[in-house]
């Protein structure tokens, strides 16, 4: 089962991985956006990590809702509302449950991803963050779903945006010239799943690894 502590550790891990990858995200954003995706997300997730040190919400839903609100208040651009909505909607879907199973989390995350799609008006293949989020949540929600599989699927989805032509956001103004560049939003979305897998792996003690894996593998 995943508790509030698990979600705090996930978001802290996300802040660390965004810090680590900020320069790469900004580089990806340079040819097809305006070269600030890394620094914008870094500012937002640093603020999330900071608020989660001060306030300690005691349910998974409250952790995610607080983090989402913080992103909306600090990131700006399109990333702020989109990432903020992803976490807020996921958190709201989880409600007041003190702990949630991985399957329940996957369901909630899917409603978060659906909210992102509705807000941005994008569909799979438009070369946006959805191209990593949807494969990620599909893998998590699948019959053999695990955090590791979600990480792989999201990363694969992000890499697969390279040959696509952007149809949403600022990159859409490039038309055909957006082809050949990985979408920075999909790249950062894959980082969320990377941090999730890291968190799940570091939660497993050597003795409990087998249990955790069988828990992951038995879902669906």
């Amino acid at each position, binding site marked *: 089962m995943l508790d509030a502590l698990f979600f705090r550790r996930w978001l802290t891990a996300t802040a660390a991985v965004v810090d680590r990858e900020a320069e790469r995200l*900004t580089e990806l954003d*340079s*040819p097809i956006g*305006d*070269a*600030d995706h890394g*620094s*914008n997300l870094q*500012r937002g997730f640093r603020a999330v990590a900071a608020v989660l040190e001060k306030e300690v919400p005691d349910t998974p839903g409250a952790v995610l809702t607080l983090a989402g609100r913080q992103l*909306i*208040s*600090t*990131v*700006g*651009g*399109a*990333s*702020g*509302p*989109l990432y903020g909505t992803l976490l807020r909607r996921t958190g709201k879907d989880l409600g007041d449950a003190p702990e949630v199973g991985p399957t329940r989390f996957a369901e909630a995350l899917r409603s978060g991803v659906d909210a992102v799609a509705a*807000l*941005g008006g994008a569909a799979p293949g438009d070369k946006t963050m959805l191209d990593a989020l949807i494969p990620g949540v599909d893998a998590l929600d699948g019959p053999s779903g695990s955090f590791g599989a979600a990480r792989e699927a999201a990363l694969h989805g992000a890499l697969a945006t390279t040959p696509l032509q952007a*149809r*949403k*956001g*600022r990159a*859409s*103004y*490039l*038309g055909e*010239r957006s082809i050949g560049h990985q979408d920075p939003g999909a790249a950062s979305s894959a980082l969320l799943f990377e941090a999730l897998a890291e968190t799940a792996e570091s939660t497993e003690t050597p003795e409990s690894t087998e249990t955790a894996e069988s828990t992951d593998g038995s879902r669906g």
Partner: protein
Amino acid sequence: MKMLINVAETVVADALRGMAAAHPELAVDVENRVIVRRDAPVEGKVALVSGGGSGHEPLHSGFVGPGMLSAALPGEVFTSPVPDQMVRAAAAVDSGAGVLFIVKNYTGDVLNFDMAAELAEDEGIQVAKVLVDDDVAVTDSLYTAGRRGTGGTLFVEKLAGAAADAGLPLERVEAVARRVNENTRSIGVALSACSTPAKGSPTFDLPPGELELGVGIHGEPGRERRAMMTSREIADFAVDAVLEDLAPHNPVLLLVNGMGGTPLLELYGFNAEVQRVLVERGVAVARTLVGNYVTSLDMAGASVTLCQIDEELLRLWDAPVRTPALRWGC
């Protein structure tokens, strides 16, 4: 790339501190990034709030004051402001007559202003929104984010600001803003790329012998890249591109706008060429504004904006305005 800054992280805050020192008639909240005319809320008058990424100065902060905006919200460089700034500003300037949000058509600006409008309405503030999308370089289709908001923003803010100053109610101020947007078209040309403080180097690669036709105000590429052209040739291209989309039967307001890195010597010369083409095409120019108003950091280049007017809009244009960057009649 040499820049007159300390560190990239404090560029916006440093600029706001400097703006506060230069303009005591504005209340500048550096921490929350809200610039409000000091006499707001003005009793019985609709308030105008706009904002967007920093790096386009004087848009929007330089347009705060009597006759134009009530408040402006600068975001990070080229990044839209956040809803908290917008709600804070709306609450500070609302006299009870309502607030008009003027939003440029970029995904980030639209999403944040939409969220802010909901939050402000929750607080009992009546909010209307108008979207500025004047850039003819972009095809407005299902497959793009739609036309960008660029130089036309100045006309929307000035004319709607005058309408609010005249005491019109919210729905009529909103209608003026929409009418201005519908009658306004722009196109931009870049001679060099801009450099953001965070990146410290040009955001796109434009070789010395080439120019980008139809560039956006964040350096987004436009229609095509060509070998460098003369001012005369650029004016022909720009005016024709705008007139393809807007066939004015009335006189127009003309904005010949610098992108930040082109001196006035060149802009005035370019204006002479723009005026020549307009005469050749039979378009009468009622008023002309030349200068750096909707910029893109240090980008060299210019944009041309035409706004077709009627008698009411011309009266609103001539109405007094007193802001850091636009000032006449008072």
